[in-house]
């Protein structure tokens, strides 16, 4: 098990480094000058030369990339001219534009992204698992049709459309909710939830359908298993069977998939963050890509990739626990 996890993490690390290298190369070839970005347009040539030196931009691209990689392990010192800015490991470098440490920036943006991802997960689990269980336990054409429709709509609607429609309905027509403006959880939990609600819903509605289907089929499968049948034969009540025995087995794949999706959401809610003004990693990434702030882009992508990797490992473990048929090679 440990060996399996280690191997997987190693492979994931390789993939991440390759990703970072490709990104670096991409931006290196792009037009635009990082020193100018750092200095602003009214910098004269002398100032730009100095900044280029400070930022190490005169080095060949592979040397810069190596500095970046070694910074992650060993940290890095940056000169600001009058003094030295120490960037402790894991150092992801310094924004070309603002000079802020990338790790600091990510630290600031992470809470918003995490709020979005976790809240959405709770919602999709509630909606998805609820619907799924209902249709598994009350099998009939009505619930099945409903679920079919739900799946269809969930599958066919891009999140930015769901999002815009939610804004239109709840924020503009009904005026039940405020136009979303992110409030940190630590500042005001009620406002936090209130302002994120539509974003959570937009994501959850898109995701919930597949959870409903998974829950349903997983529940049906579990209910058909031998040990459940044995319980039934012993006269255990249906309610107890479902709640105490079947649910646990049936929900394992649901939780595993949730872990996976949570990871994806950490790296993927770009459109949602943009639409709902959530100052998270996705929004920062889009902005940094557009101004070609390479260290920030690479740093955020790495963190997002890491989230996916960790989520996968968690999902793997959950699966292994749930289903011994999965061979851990």
């Amino acid at each position, binding site marked *: 098990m440990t060996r399996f996890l280690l191997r997987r993490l190693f492979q994931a690390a390789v993939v991440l480094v390759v990703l970072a290298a490709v990104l670096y190369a991409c931006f290196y070839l*792009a037009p635009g000058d990082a020193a100018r970005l750092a200095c602003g347009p009214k910098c004269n040539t002398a100032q730009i030369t100095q900044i280029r030196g400070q930022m190490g931009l005169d080095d060949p691209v592979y040397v810069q990339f190596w500095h970046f990689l070694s910074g992650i392990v060993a940290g890095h010192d940056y000169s600001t001219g009058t003094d030295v800015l120490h960037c402790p490991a894991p150092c992801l470098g310094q924004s070309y534009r603002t000079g802020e440490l990338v790790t600091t920036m990510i630290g600031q943006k992470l809470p918003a992204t995490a709020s979005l991802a976790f809240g959405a997960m709770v919602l999709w689990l509630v909606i998805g698992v609820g619907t799924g269980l209902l249709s598994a336990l009350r099998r009939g054409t009505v619930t099945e049709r409903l679920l079919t429709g739900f799946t269809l709509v969930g599958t066919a609607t891009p999140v930015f459309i769901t999002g815009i429609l939610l804004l*239109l309905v709840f924020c503009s027509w009904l005026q039940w909710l405020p136009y979303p403006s992110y409030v940190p959880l630590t500042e005001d939990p009620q406002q936090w939830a209130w302002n994120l609600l539509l974003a959570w819903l937009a994501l959850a509605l898109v995701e919930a359908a597949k959870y409903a289907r*998974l829950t349903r089929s997983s529940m049906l499968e579990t209910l058909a298993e031998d040990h459940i049948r044995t319980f039934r034969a012993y006269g255990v009540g249906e309610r107890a069977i479902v709640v105490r025995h079947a649910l646990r087995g049936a929900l394992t794949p649901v939780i595993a998939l949730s872990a996976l999706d949570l990871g994806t959401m950490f790296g993927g809610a770009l459109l949602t963050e943009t639409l709902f003004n959530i100052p998270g990693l996705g929004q920062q990434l889009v902005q940094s890509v557009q101004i070609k702030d390479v260290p920030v882009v690479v740093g955020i992508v790495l963190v997002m990739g890491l989230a996916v990797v960790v989520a996968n490992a968690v999902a793997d473990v959950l699966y292994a626990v749930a289903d011994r048929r999965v061979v851990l090679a």
Partner: protein
Amino acid sequence: MTVEALSAAEGGTDAVASAPPSGARQVWRRLRGQRAALAGGAVIALFVLVAVAAPLLAAIEGQDTTSYHAGLVDSASGGVPLGTFGGVSGSHWLGVEPGTGRDLFARLVYGSRISLIVAFGATVLQVLLGVLLGLAAGLGNRFLDGLLSRITDVFVTMPALIFAIALLAVVPDGFPRPVLLMLVLGLLAWGGIAKIVRAQVLTLKSLDYVAASRLGGSGPWRTARRELLPALVAPVVTYAAILLPSNIVSEAGLSFLGIGVTPPTPSWGQMLSSASTWYQADSAYVLLPAVLLFVTVLAFTVFADGVRTALDPRVASRLRVGTGRRKQAKADAGSSGTVSPEAVASGKVSPDVAEPETASRKAVTGE
């Protein structure tokens, strides 16, 4: 059992595997039996027709996509269209755009062209690349297979949307945007199809008739052409049908982020993006592209599902619950990654639809 063999074997049990080669007529008959799929097909046909006939339709209305109508908007109030439903009138069937007063009907019908062209082009590219690389991996030696599989994994794992944004920012502006979008989507999202083809090939390779052909002295490419390609048609067509709507969504998503086609070329995603700031003052402007995108993607999704069932009637519809044959939980979960748009947005531009769930999970970690 090695991982490769495991995923191959699981691929073998899944929907797309080794469908018995069936005649086109038979497939058509099965497809005809599905009302939803037919309706989806009809909607698609209508959209294609509209896209092709866009100049004609605009001419019938008597408008074009670029003419400004300053008189139709209230300049002092920020340019909101005068009149109801965003300025709907006899000469502007769906109203006008706030600020500019450009005709929305013309822009929408022309916009469908971009959506469809980019999505079709990207899908063709994805299929070509995926089939080629999948075949090479499946037929090649251990080293080639290992190398190609790792490369495929990188492409499946990486956040494709982010790369698309980066690439779009890097490519010089002179490059024609629709072609660029096609290339970016196509080059980034072939991983899923390659994995499926490879898994199929590995399964097929062990089958008697393929083995016989190889023993008979056929080279790998000859074997591929004569024995494997025909057997790959069904899964590849199925997968392509699912990729298409996801490509439509990806194009709209990129345009929504402001990095799709450049103005004044209209596209639905771009219209949606500018409309998102107007949703209260002019909700008709938001609803039009949103509903059109929704209906198009829905039609493609339903149609793709129909095609899948028609090609291999042994599997249940991915979309219908309960009425089809019950499948085991894990395979069902596999269909989950489908065209969930945020997943598409998040980088899985290739929806791991037809793959067994475990395989797609392995893909994400680079296993």
